[in-house]
C-alpha cells in the first residue's frame, strides 16, 4: 500500500516536501543553536581577485588553451588572426620593456584575463544592463540580453572584451568535448572572461554541502588558467582574506595593477620580475 502511495504523484510530492521540511528544520535548529565556522566563513563578503607572477610565468600559453577549452571559446587560427576576429578570453599580450638588459628579452608576455574592475567602464556604458557587477563583485555578462552594440568593447581600457563576429560551427568531433557548464554564446554578442564563475559556484556548492568553508588552497587554482599554469604563476583567491595567497602576493612590493591612474581599480595584479633572484 505504502509502495503504491509512494508511486503516485501526490505521494512523491509529499515525500519530497517532508524531506525539505526536515532538512530546513534541522538546519534552522542548528543555526539557532550556534553559528558554525563554515557558515560564518560563507557569509563573509568576498572580493575575488587574481595575481600573476611574471617572474614565474614562462609564456607557455597553457592558460590561453585551457581557458579556451573550459569556456567553449571557438578556436582561432591564422585566418582569424589576419582578419582580426580572434576570440580569446585569456590572451598573452607582448609587453615591450624599456631599458631591459643583462641578456633579458625586450619583450615579456602578459597573461591577460578580464580584470573584473571595481569601477568597470564597460558596465557603466552598457545600454541594456547586459553586463553588470554581480553580488560577488565579478563583472558578469548576460549573453542573451546583449544586443551587440560593442560599446563595452570600445570602453574597456584594457581591450579585454571580444565581439562574436561570426557564427561558430563546432565540428562534430568537438561537440562531445564542449563544457556543459558553460553556455554557448550566440553570434553577435560580446564575450569576456568570467573568472570561471561556473567553477566557483560548483566549489561553493560543494563546500556548502560538506558544511565547510572554502579553503584558500582550492581557490588558488580554481580558474582554468590557474589550474593549467605549470609554473603556478596565476593565483586566484579572496582579496578580502588577508591570509590568502592572492592577498599576500598583491601586497608584495613587486605587485602593481595596470593603469591604476584610470580609476578602474582592476582586481588583477601583476608581480614584476624579481631581478635579485637572477
Amino acid at each position, binding site marked *: 500500500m505504502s509502495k503504491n502511495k509512494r508511486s503516485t504523484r501526490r505521494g512523491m510530492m509529499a515525500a519530497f516536501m517532508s524531506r525539505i521540511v526536515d532538512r530546513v528544520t534541522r538546519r534552522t535548529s542548528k543555526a539557532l543553536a550556534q553559528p558554525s565556522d563554515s557558515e560564518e566563513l560563507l557569509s563573509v563578503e568576498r572580493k575575488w581577485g587574481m595575481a600573476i607572477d611574471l617572474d614565474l610565468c614562462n609564456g607557455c600559453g597553457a592558460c590561453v588553451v585551457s581557458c579556451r577549452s573550459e569556456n567553449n571559446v571557438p578556436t582561432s587560427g591564422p585566418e582569424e588572426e589576419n582578419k*582580426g576576429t580572434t576570440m580569446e578570453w585569456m590572451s598573452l599580450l607582448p609587453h615591450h620593456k624599456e631599458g631591459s638588459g643583462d641578456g633579458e628579452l625586450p619583450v615579456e608576455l602578459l597573461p591577460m584575463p578580464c580584470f573584473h574592475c571595481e569601477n568597470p567602464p564597460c*558596465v557603466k556604458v552598457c*545600454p*541594456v544592463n547586459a553586463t553588470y557587477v554581480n553580488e560577488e563583485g565579478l563583472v558578469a555578462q548576460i549573453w542573451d540580453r546583449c544586443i551587440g552594440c*560593442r560599446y563595452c568593447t570600445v570602453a574597456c581600457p*584594457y581591450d579585454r572584451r571580444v565581439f562574436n563576429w561570426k557564427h561558430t560551427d563546432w565540428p562534430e568531433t568537438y561537440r562531445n568535448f564542449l563544457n556543459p557548464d558553460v553556455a554557448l554564446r550566440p553570434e553577435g554578442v560580446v564575450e569576456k572572461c568570467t573568472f570561471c564563475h561556473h567553477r566557483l559556484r560548483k566549489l561553493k556548492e560543494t563546500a556548502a554541502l560538506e558544511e565547510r568553508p572554502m579553503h584558500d588552497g582550492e581557490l588558488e587554482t580554481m580558474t582554468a588558467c590557474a589550474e593549467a599554469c605549470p609554473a603556478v604563476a596565476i593565483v586566484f583567491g579572496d582579496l578580502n582574506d588577508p591570509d590568502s595567497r592572492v592577498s599576500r602576493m598583491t601586497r608584495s612590493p613587486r605587485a602593481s595593477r595596470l593603469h591604476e591612474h*584610470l580609476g578602474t581599480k582592476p582586481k588583477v595584479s601583476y608581480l614584476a620580475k624579481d631581478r635579485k633572484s637572477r
Partner: protein
Amino acid sequence: MKHSAGSVTPLQPLRLPKIGPLGIIVWVVIPLVLIAIGIYAFAQQRLHGDVVTNMRSVGDGGAAWGLYIMFDIFFVGLAATGIAVSTGAHLFRIRDLRPLARIAEFLAVLSLILAGMCVMADQGRPMAALWKLPQFARVMSPFFGSFTLIVGVGVAASLVMLYLGGRGDAAWCARAGGPFSWVYRIWASGYRGTDRELLRHRRARFWLSLTFFPFIVIAYSTLGFVFGTQGGRPGWFGALRAPSMLIVAGISGVGLLLAIAGVLHRYLGAHNAIPVRVFQRLGNVLLILISVFLYLLAVETLTERYAGQTAALRVADAVTFGVYAPAFWTMLALLFVSMGILFVQFLARKALIGWTVIAGLLVNGAAILRRFLVVVPAQTHGHHLDYPAGFYVPGWIEVAVLLGIISIGVLAFVAFMRCFPIVPLHAYYGRMRNVLEPETQGRILLRRVLTTGSMVGGLALGAVGLALSARFGTEPFLDPIVPFSPVIFIAGIVMTIYSAAVYVIVPPG
C-alpha cells in the same frame, strides 16, 4: 501680397516640377537600385555575421565601430541643426529662416530615422536591440541619450513642428485636390486659417521651440559624451568632445540647408521665397561655425601634444602625420576652401548662390571626414597597452548598406517635395488672413484644460518613467524596476511635446 483663404493659387511652382526620364533615373531608379543592393548587403551581414564587414575587434588592429556609427553621428547632427534652425526661426523670430523652416523640420525627421537605421545596422543583434532597448534601456548609459532619447523624442518633436507648421499649407493642398488630398485633409483637419488660429499656432510653436531648443543641445551633447566620457580610450576622452561635435553638427546642417536652399532657389522657382540675404546670413553663420570649430580643433591638438601622454600622442600622430593624415588634411583643406568662399562673400557683402552651395557641400565632406577621425583612430591607435596599431576602411557591405540608407532618405525627400510645398506658402504669397473668429469662454477653458492636462500628465509620466528606469538612490547598475519603464519615460516626454498639438487642434467651437 495678401490672399484670402478662399482663393486657391496654383501650386505648381511650390512643388518639385515634373521630372523627365533623366530625372526619374537620377532621383528614383538609382535610389531604388541602391536600396535593393543595400538590402542584399544587410542580408549578407545578418546571414554570415558582422565578420563580412571591415569592422574588427579593438586590440586586434581593428575598429569595432566604423561607418555606421560615423553616419549615425552625421545624421543626428543634421537633425540637430534642422531642429535648431526651425526652433530658432520661431524662438528668435528670425524671419529670414522661416522659408527654410519646413526643409529643416523634414530634414530633422528624416535624418533621425536614418540615424536610427545606421545604429540598427551596427548592432550585432538588431532584433534583440529592438526588443531589449525599450525593455531594459539604462538612463546612465550615454547610448540612452544618444539613441533612445534623440531618436525617440527627437522624431516626435520634429514631427510636431512639421505638423503644426504645415497645417495651413495642407489645407491649401486639400482644396487643390489630387490623389493625396485625403492625407492633406487629415493633416489640416479643423484648420480654418483665422487670425486667432494663426496666433495659436505661433504661440504653440514658440513654446515648443523654447523647450526643445535646450533639449536638442543637451541631447546632442550626449552623443559627444558617448566618446568624451571614455577615460580608458585615449583620443576620445576630453571635455571638448561634446561642444566640438555640436559645432560640427551645426556646420554640416547649415551647409546642407544652404545646398538644398540653393537648388530650390535656382532650379525650382523659389527665388522670391528664399531671398539672397538668407544665403548671405546663413553663409556668415557657417563662417563663424567653421572658425569656432577650427579654434576648438587647435585647442584640442595643442593640449594633446603639450601633455604628450603616450597613448593620446599615438592617436594624434596617426591623425596628423600617420595613416589617417590624408583624411585630416583633406578635411582641413575643405574647411579652408569653404571658409575662403564665405569670407570673400562676407567682405563683398553679397552672396553668390552657386558658390554658397559649393561651400555647403564641401563642409559636409569635411564633416564626414571629421566623424571618421573622431570614431576610428582612437580605436585603432588609442590603446593604453601594447596592442598593435591597426587601420580601418569600410568594406563593400558597409558602404552598400549605408548607400541604401541614404537612398531611402533621398527618395523620401524627393517624394515629400513632390507632394507638399517644401517652402511654406506664406513665403510666396504673404500670410493668409481671414475674419476674426469668435471663441466661447467654455471652449477657451476646454483648450487650456486639455493642453495643461496633457503637459502635466506627460511630465508626470516622464518623471515616473525616469525614476523607475534610473533607480535613484539604489545601486546604479540594476535593471529598471518595471520592465519597459524607459518607454514610459520617453512616452511622457513625447506626450508633453504633443500638448503643443493639443493646444492647436482643439476646435474653436
